[in-house]
């Protein structure tokens, strides 16, 4: 990889500024998935509480953008609501960037409707495919089922940069990214919640953390995957009945960043706190053995990163 001199000058400038003004290096920067943002934010706040003076910046811009920025070295940690794709992994490798994948929690993708829409309470996977697929032949609820009202559906959902979007389209429509495109798109789950909460016949999907803190103004729709209607409860996400709309959430951590104490400690703290902070935020904790395995992976890659 050829380094652009201007870029190097920029890095140098920032480093020099930090050194000149007595700053103890830069902050730990977390980006990526918005679905994981509430948990990352909670862990970050708890981390700063246990180690005052630690400097963290937690943002989100969607899984795809986060992974891209991670492999460019712009951020230390990228949250992801899906696994890194083969293409993204290749791009990282080509840039000479190494990372570790740390699963931190599970959640469900929740189909949400307006609370006063009590007609639609369960949808099959096939119906979801018709609703969200690229053919967009469903315009009103009646188009879906004859006994539904003839009311226009307004769709709210994440857009192409989102891991939730990619995951949902892959398992529901069958091809990642294949989706109707006339829906209101945003990377911010809260904006989806706000949209559906303000539309009597609206339909949206979002991560279960966003559903959790908007549960007073939204109604979750159960999903029938062939074994009856399953609501997106924590139990159903944990025991697999809510699959394929239940998924794992990950942190991707740059191996070179792991050599830094603050990054390593933050990820370790994440593994310690995910099971404690997650459930109240709408996540489902992984089995404790998984966290143990991740701790081992973390320690090993730190040893490798620190000669």
């Amino acid at each position, binding site marked *: 990889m050829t380094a652009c001199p201007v870029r190097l000058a920029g890095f140098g400038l920032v480093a020099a*500024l930090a050194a000149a003004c007595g700053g103890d290096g830069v902050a730990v920067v977390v980006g990526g998935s918005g679905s994981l943002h509430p948990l990352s934010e909670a862990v970050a706040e708890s981390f700063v509480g246990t180690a005052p003076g630690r400097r963290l910046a937690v943002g989100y811009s969607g899984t795809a953008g986060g992974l891209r920025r991670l492999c460019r070295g712009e951020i230390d940690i990228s949250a992801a609501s899906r696994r890194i794709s083969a293409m993204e992994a290749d791009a990282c490798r080509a840039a000479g960037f190494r990372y570790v994948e740390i699963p931190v929690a599970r959640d469900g993708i929740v189909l949400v409707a307006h609370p006063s829409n009590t007609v639609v309470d369960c949808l099959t996977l096939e119906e979801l495919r018709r609703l969200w697929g690229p053919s967009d032949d469903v315009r009103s609820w009646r188009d879906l089922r004859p006994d539904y009202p003839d009311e226009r559906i307004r769709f709210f959902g994440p857009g192409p940069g989102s891991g939730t979007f990619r995951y949902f389209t892959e398992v529901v429509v069958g091809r990642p990214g294949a989706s109707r495109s006339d829906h209101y798109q945003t990377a911010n789950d809260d904006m989806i919640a706000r949209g559906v909460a303000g539309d009597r016949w609206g339909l949206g999907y979002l991560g279960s953390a966003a559903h959790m803190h908007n549960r007073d103004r939204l109604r979750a729709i159960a999903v029938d995957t062939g074994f009856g209607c399953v609501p997106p409860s924590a139990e159903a996400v944990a025991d697999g009945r809510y699959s394929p709309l239940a998924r794992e959430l990950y942190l991707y951590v740059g191996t070179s960043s792991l050599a830094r104490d603050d990054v390593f400690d933050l990820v370790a703290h994440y593994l310690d706190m995910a099971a404690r902070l997650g459930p109240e935020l709408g996540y489902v904790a992984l089995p404790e053995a998984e966290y143990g395995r991740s701790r081992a992976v973390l320690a090993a890659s730190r040893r490798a990163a620190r000669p």
Partner: protein
Amino acid sequence: MTPLATRDLLGTACRLGAALTLTAAIALLGVLLVQALGVVDVGFLAGAPSRFASRAGVGPAIAGTLWLAVLTAALSFPVGIGAAVYFEEYAPRNRLAGLAGSALANMAGVPPVVFGVAGLALFVRGMGLGPTILAAGLTLAMLALPTVLVTSRTALREVPRGVRDAASALGATRWQVIRRQVLPAAGPGIVTGLTLALTRTVGAAAPLLVLGAPAFVTHAPRTPGDILTALPTQAFTWSTRTEADFAALAAGTAVTLLVLLLTVNLGALVLRRRLR
């Protein structure tokens, strides 16, 4: 209709316009203040952001906005005023200079978000600065520059020709004329322009959001190399949250920003009095 009646009608319309403007301003402030009431206190001003609305504060965001104000002023004021002096006093009166001048003036009408996109490509990615205070300061300086230039040029142009001629007739060099006569005479007008440019720029959220200001920053920036956080982006972040009480936090942040900008205006007022 008689001319007199027309004038009456126009007068009434103007009065109505004034009343509406005043009502809008009062309503805006009122809504903000009512929402912000009970949010803005010492803990809020000094504290760090939190996922618990009751504990959240804007300390880091205030520090970030102060940094941005200083950087924007330091980078855009000298360059902008210098360029204004060049165009008004030195530039040849030809087509090319006129074209360059009006092209730069038109930049003042370019929406802030466009500068954000340019800043992202130039400073955040191109120079590899990342979403830092420095990258944001450079971007905001670019945003402020056209306004500084246009207002300074106007102020310089309002200095009577006679002042320059008289000073030149007494044997002053061109630079002496500018330094001793023109700039002091244009001072109050320039300060007004600088204030306008600075407050408009530092209050803009869009360019900072494009640069990638993270939603949750736990610490106040200590150097321009630190991660970007600022009051307008903090207000935006909180306003998108749906949990109760965060709307009040957004309003509190907006009021804090307003007070900060009012202070800048007040400082400018005092400075203008001094310069007169």
